[in-house]
């Protein structure tokens, strides 16, 4: 599951990375966002959406995506 900050919510972690990259000489970088990846084995994948909504993501501030 890929979990990322919702669009429009300030993401200071992304901003910090965005500021750090040019300091290392990387140019033309914008719109950096930092989320997280949850990996798991599951017997019944139909539970994944509910897992995201109820625990793995906070739907008030985060979007999630199930990657098969």
């Amino acid at each position, binding site marked *: 599951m890929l979990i990322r900050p919702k669009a429009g*919510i*300030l993401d*200071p*972690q992304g901003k*910090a990375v965005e500021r750090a990259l040019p300091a290392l000489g990387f140019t033309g970088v914008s719109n950096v966002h930092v989320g997280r990846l949850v990996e798991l084995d599951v017997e019944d994948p139909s539970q994944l959406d509910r897992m995201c909504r109820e*625990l*793995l993501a*906070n739907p*008030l*501030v985060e979007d999630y995506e199930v990657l098969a």
Partner: protein
Amino acid sequence: MRVGVITFPGTCDDVDARLAVGKVAEPVALWHGDADLQGVDAVVVPGGFSYGDYLRAGAIARFAPAMASVIEAAREGLPVLGICNGFQILCEAGLLPGALLPNTSLRFACRQVELEVVRDDTAWTRACAVGDRLSIPAKHTTGRFTGEVPEEQVVLRYVHDPVPNGSQDAIAGVCNEARNVVGLMPHPEHAVDLLTGGSEDGLRIFESVALARV
């Protein structure tokens, strides 16, 4: 009056919370793994790093057996106060609106903050008056309040510009619709004794719940 204080693995402000409660009521130690609230008249969910703050602050603590009882009792009107990590837990549990995100600075910030009382008709601010200023410490990394919250559920605001943690609309504390559940990031339990707290303003929060019972 008996006020329970829940301890989770990783909680660190439970002892101060019990001391603060002890100045106005009888403190009762509650354990996260025990669903029995021992008939307390109110509950404090204190600060710290419950379950290591793994995943998101408060995300795992809200599934503790004690929290299941707190959620049920809160919906029936039990006064519940969440301080710092406790505030994060109550938001994750859906008892309070919004969410707490990392401070804009991404740094841990520890300082005395000035708060303005916006509502004096909640179970935890009854001993205050609207417009009162409270000087109490704040210490957190994940305190930026974000979310859709009606103005009538804003209880406390930071009197600082810029707002120390970047909270939306300078919100420091909110309540539920019924106003029995309140959460705030700063720590009233650390400001109940002039010798160590810099002020005694935090006592007003605990006096409020004692008043509510009379």
